[in-house]
């Protein structure tokens, strides 16, 4: 199959829900936290698609085969885009046997293009993700389908993973089953004869552990041998249109294959996971455990990261600034607009961004730990009742959790929801999840205004975020979606396991890199734009680059906007300007402050006094009610539009009209809540 006949996977592929039978369309996918991997082995390389039920190790296998960077996690719905990578398929040194390997394998390496398709329990398409998988495997023209399909099956839950195998075997496709989680199966006393299973399924079965990178060379050999053979005849099915009859036939077939290959203990043994679940999902204990876990995450993040942040701050405001100044003096550019751009703009802005890398990395490590351990799937069970109050199923919690990392992939993750109205409501609610970019501002304000209680203040914002989601969700449900039903909670719980260091490192690195890549671009553009607007005078008698910030175009616009925030207690024009910049990206709020204050009074080392400037600003604008004003500002920051990238993702998923509606809801909610917080707070503080 040539690449020209397979244009659907040259970009991020998204389901075209309005035209279900059309080929998946291309859409640019840009995220501050991840972008789907998009590399191919060339137009002549065979295409191998990896499919499987959610949480059977699909994305982990893809990563292991391609050394690519796809988000992997121990909970359903991790793959929401189609990723593509190159697999340098190298067979083992010695031949293996059938069921695993085939004779006559070649020694040389062969490059294969690998697609990581969204998780699907079946090809019946209950959700857009499953629809996309069906479209790519079943509904497209035969010559556009993958050359081979690797179906991942969890050995510890063999029966329900084989339903998809049964459906894929009914298609004119080469199929190889990759059996994962054999170690978990063995722990549960289940042993599987892969040769017997291969006989029963009529396709090769390879035992592999992508988390530990074992069995991959055997898989390479089997895949290459299978690719060299003709496409096998599809499995015969009953000649009927009755879905139940076809289902019965599939279950009879897969049950026979599983039974002849599996030795199971007399009854399913209770595992450590079951014992842990009795506590963490229990009616009384589950919610406090969930809150305690989340609190620990944010407390750990702030307390451990703070010293590292301080050290980096000193580095940038000291030696780095001094070095740049010395260089500028050397080329006689000190005291010019270049100094303003470089020292007060780029060094201060980028330096401020980099000080938050330890914080972000720590947060990502802890979230990866929760994901990879399997706890997040339980969190969806615990929060199901809460989600149901706003008419959303428990699994809507999953995109919302992703939103706490970054809103952009969270918007894409809403595709795991089968109901269009539930997807729309979730897309509108995701911006209220407190993303990691907002975390940087919360941590800074928490440290400046709440001292040792910074962690609790930040945690409070996350609780407020959840409350905001419920509040806005209830409001929308009671007004626009009164007739919306709710899907029953059905979640396939993965076994808990000890997170793999390599996988966690991969996920953390991918997210930190994504954050840095996007944020640095946004920061540089924003900082440059802010500097330009601050350099252009808005009053007569001043020249470009030699104008006080307050008299610049930037200052004038900010001063025009700032009275809007007077009832909320933060009508300083510098604060309003930071919010204006924050509309582009929250990563830029602090750099905007740093830039504004440093440009206003450009002494060397100014950025170290940023906290004092901000304290003074809030104290002045609130008439001495500093804490209520800061809390009002934090609530506004939490509720208003997260960033333009999120808007782009929303527009892609729900269209321009609903995106604009979302922005209006966000701004109105943010302003009303901020005013309420300040006006009530000033009565007490």
């Amino acid at each position, binding site marked *: 199959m040539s690449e020209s006949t397979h244009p659907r996977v040259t970009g991020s592929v998204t389901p075209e829900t309005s035209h279900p039978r059309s080929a998946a369309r291309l859409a640019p996918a840009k995220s501050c936290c991840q972008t789907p991997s998009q590399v191919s082995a060339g137009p002549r390389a065979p295409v191998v698609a990896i499919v499987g039920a959610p949480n059977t190790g699909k994305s982990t296998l893809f990563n292991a085969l391609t050394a690519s960077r796809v988000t992997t996690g121990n909970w359903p719905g991790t793959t929401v885009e189609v990723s593509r990578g190159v697999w340098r398929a190298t067979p083992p040194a010695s031949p293996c046997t059938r069921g695993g390997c085939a004779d006559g394998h070649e020694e040389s390496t062969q490059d294969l293009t690998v697609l990581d398709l969204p998780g699907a329990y079946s090809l019946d398409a209950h959700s857009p993700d499953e629809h996309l998988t069906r479209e790519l495997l079943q509904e497209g023209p035969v010559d556009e389908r993958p050359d081979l399909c690797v179906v991942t099956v969890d050995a510890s839950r063999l029966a329900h993973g084989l339903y998809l195998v049964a459906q894929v075997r009914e298609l004119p496709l080469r199929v190889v089953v990759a059996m994962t989680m054999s170690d978990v199966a063995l722990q549960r006393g289940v042993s599987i004869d892969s040769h017997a299973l291969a006989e029963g399924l009529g396709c090769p079965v390879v035992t592999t552990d992508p988390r530990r990178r074992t069995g991959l060379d055997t898989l390479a050999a089997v895949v290459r041998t299978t690719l060299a053979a003709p496409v096998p005849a599809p499995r015969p099915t009953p000649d009927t249109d009755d879905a139940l009859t076809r289902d019965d036939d599939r279950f009879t077939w897969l049950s026979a294959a599983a039974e002849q290959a599996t030795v*199971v203990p007399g009854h399913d043994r209770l595992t450590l996971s079951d014992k842990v679940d009795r506590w963490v999902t229990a009616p009384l204990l589950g919610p406090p455990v969930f809150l305690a876990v989340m609190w620990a995450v944010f407390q750990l993040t702030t307390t451990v990261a703070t010293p590292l942040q301080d050290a980096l701050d000193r580095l940038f405001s000291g030696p780095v600034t001094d070095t740049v100044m010395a260089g500028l003096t050397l080329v006689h550019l000190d005291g010019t607009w270049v100094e303003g751009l470089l020292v007060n703009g780029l060094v201060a802005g980028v330096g401020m961004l980099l000080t938050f890398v330890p914080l972000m990395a720590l947060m990502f490590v802890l979230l990866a730990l929760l994901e990879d351990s399997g706890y997040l799937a339980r969190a969806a069970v615990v929060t199901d009742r809460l989600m149901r109050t706003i008419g959303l199923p428990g699994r809507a919690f999953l995109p919302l959790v992703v939103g706490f990392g970054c809103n952009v992939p969270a918007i894409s993750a809403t595709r795991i929801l089968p109901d269009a109205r539930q997807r729309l409501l979730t897309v509108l609610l995701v911006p209220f999840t407190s993303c990691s970019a907002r975390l940087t501002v919360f941590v800074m304000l928490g440290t400046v205004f709440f001292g040792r209680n910074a962690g609790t203040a930040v945690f409070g914002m996350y609780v407020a975020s959840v409350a905001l989601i419920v509040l806005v969700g209830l409001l929308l449900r009671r007004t626009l979606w009164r007739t919306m039903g709710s899907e029953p*909670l059905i979640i396939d*719980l993965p076994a808990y396991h000890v997170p793999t260091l390599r996988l966690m490192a991969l996920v953390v690195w991918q997210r930190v890199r994504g954050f840095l890549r996007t944020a640095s671009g946004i920061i540089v553009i924003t900082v440059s734009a802010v500097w330009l607007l601050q350099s252009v005078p808005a009053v007569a008698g001043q020249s470009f680059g030699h104008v006080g910030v307050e008299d610049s175009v930037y200052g004038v616009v900010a001063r025009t906007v700032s009275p809007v925030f007077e009832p909320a207690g933060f009508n300083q024009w510098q604060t309003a300007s930071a919010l204006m910049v924050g509309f582009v990206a929250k990563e830029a709020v602090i750099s905007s402050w740093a830039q504004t204050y440093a440009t206003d009074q450009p002494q060397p080392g100014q950025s170290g006094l940023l906290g004092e400037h901000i304290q003074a600003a809030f104290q002045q604008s609130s008439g001495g009610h500093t804490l209520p004003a800061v809390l009002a500002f934090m609530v506004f920051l939490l509720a208003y539009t997260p960033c333009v990238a999120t808007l782009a993702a929303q527009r892609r998923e729900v269209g321009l009209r609903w995106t604009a509606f979302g922005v209006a809801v966000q701004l109105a909610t943010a302003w009303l809540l901020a005013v309420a917080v300040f006006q009530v707070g000033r009565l007490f503080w």
Partner: protein
Amino acid sequence: MATGMDLRSAPLGEPLTLLRVDDPLLGQRLATLGLREGVSFRLLTHTVGGGRILLVDGSRIALGSDLVRRLRARAA
């Protein structure tokens, strides 16, 4: 005809057999997870909001409270 008991009143830890699921779409969705009419399973634990976690063919499936009320089973 509805017989047996709903899962809300079914005991934890005892082998149960699932009876017919009235909603074909729901039945199909549960079947892909291994939970079909006539299949043996056990309830493992209560969850927040009145749901249950059940064990079927090695899989642990969390079900919400409304589903727990709708599904019926009998002692295996």
